[in-house]
């Protein structure tokens, strides 16, 4: 658990995604690990620079889909074979081809809900408070047109003066301290 007081990290603001990606790569090269980029749209190169490749969203989605198909198919079978058997024009009680259709729909339903809520949960949302919002320039640009790199204080290599010096060698618009 990171400390809840004091400094959260140093936030550098950039004007272009290229500058952000270069700074991020350099920071990683210099040994920083606890850092995050904030961009107004997905910048894949930034994720590469952070070495963040794998998300578990597809796995959650797959599990959801499997759960959906199993639930629906077993439910239909149980209902139409055991719970409430009806003779419909002499068709077998276990009419497996007909059961595929609702099972197909529930596969999609469960998989889709898992993907959406899985993404939200893995992202730790809803999280209405976050230290970066304390930076005076963050909300003015992070969701509009500015690109941010935050080197976090929990990184063992973090030092207020050294890290600031490191960030200032890039064409950053500003480097500000972010408090918890």
């Amino acid at each position: 658990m990171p400390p809840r007081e004091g400094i959260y990290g140093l936030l550098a603001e950039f004007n272009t995604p290229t500058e952000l990606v270069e700074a991020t790569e350099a920071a990683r090269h210099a040994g920083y690990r606890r850092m995050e980029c904030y961009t107004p749209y997905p910048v894949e190169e930034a994720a590469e620079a952070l070495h963040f490749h794998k998300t578990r969203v597809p796995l959650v989605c797959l599990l959801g889909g499997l759960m959906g198909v199993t639930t629906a198919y077993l439910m239909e079978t149980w209902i139409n074979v055991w719970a409430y058997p009806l003779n419909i024009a002499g068709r077998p009680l276990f009419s497996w081809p007909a059961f595929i259709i609702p099972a197909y729909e529930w596969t999609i339903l469960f998989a889709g809900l898992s993907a959406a809520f899985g993404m939200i949960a893995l992202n730790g949302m809803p999280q209405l408070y976050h230290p970066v919002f304390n930076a005076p320039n963050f909300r003015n640009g992070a969701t509009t047109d500015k690109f941010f790199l935050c080197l976090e204080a929990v990184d063992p290599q973090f030092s207020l003066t050294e890290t600031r010096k490191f960030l200032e060698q890039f064409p950053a618009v500003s480097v500000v301290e972010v408090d918890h």
Partner: protein
Amino acid sequence: MATKVPLNDPMIDPRTGEYAVIAPGHNFKSVTQKIAGIVLTSNTPLGWFFGLMLGGAVATGVVIGCTWLFLKGVGIWGVTIPGAWGFAIINFVWWIGIGHAGTLISAILLLFKQTWRNSINRFAEAMTIFAVVCAGTFPLIHVGRPWLAYWLFPYPNTMNVWPQFRSPLAWDVFAVSTYATISIVFWYVGMIPDFGTLRDRATMPFAKYMYGLLSLGWRGSTRHWIRYESASLLLAGLSTPLVLSVHTVISFDFAVAALAGWHTTIFPPYFVAGAIYSGFAMVLTLAIPIRKFYHLEDMVTLRHLDNMAKVMLGTGGIVAYGYGMEVFMSWYSASHWEFFMMWNRMFGPMGWAYWILILTNIAIPLTSLWSRKLRVNVTYLFVLSLIVNTGMWFERFVIVVTSLYRDYLPSSWGTYRATKWDYMIYVGTMGLFTFLFFLFVRFLPMIPMSEIRMMLPQTKVKRGGSDAASVVEERV
């Protein structure tokens, strides 16, 4: 084709001769300001109030019609035996078909990397949801005892009664409820980053608070974005088979019945194509006035209109093939009843509906949409979109009514005549749709800002001498 258009038009890309997807000269800030400004403005255009009130006034038709319906029963409608499916089913199929273009734009075109779709995707999705709301109303009020409509769902009850899963009507419940849920989820997930933008740009405390809640605390973190993109792609990948299955299942409602004119294998693809055809027509009906009213010509350009018209041309062709095949099969099947059904459909007492359908769905659009000049003529496209929507409504009318009112036994023949309550509820749902849509354009970002930013040339990361490959791979 490119030589026919004026060469000095700034909207035309000189390399391809195509209209640009986004007008030149925009940057991250300008697109954000433009789109967020519509929502966050403190002076709402007067026309918006007028539109909202007009929609609301017409929507009272649904309220009044349904109230009387609940008091008196479905006898106030024109449904009777043999025409037991009337306006309610026609309107249901029509509305849900309209919704399909929204999913097609948001899901299938995303998978095909058609980036031009970014600007029209959000309101096409909104259109889907509102169309599904209107569509969903009809089967619910058509069941006769709408207060028991929840019996459609499998739930444990003291009567020990359960749904019967060999019936297409039970499949329909699953298909449509899944479709509504996934469409809403996809729509909302798409809006999360934009809610973040609105939260940060809002000045009114209440707006900040509401958009802040809706954004779930979105801060644009790269790790979040990667998961977000992954979830969006998955939702798109799931919505694609979903949208195809929904209208397929709806067509099963007809195709599984042993009635001449319904009992055909061509129904699923033909229904899906028809759905997309009418849906794109509805996107045009909505996009053309909105881009004019809110001056969004920079983002919803002639390229979008042109592309949508092309999709209509393609799906319209499939629909025409469907009509042709129906006629052919009624002869080729050598079935007396099939043959009579087609003769009756064309030349019987309701033959006029068939010819309206051919005129509005085939004759007018499929002859004119080949012309690029007409495809970029905004007025023409708007009129055409209304024509096609009328045509698609008549298609459902023809399918539902003409097969039912004269079936196998001449002694059981009847006719179908809609009552004023049928018309009132139908027109009312159009008002409801308009009302919801006006609320949407005022309070939610109607163009996805984060996706528009991705279409700008500034988005590209320019790599210098040292790139990611030269960085030493290190694992934590």
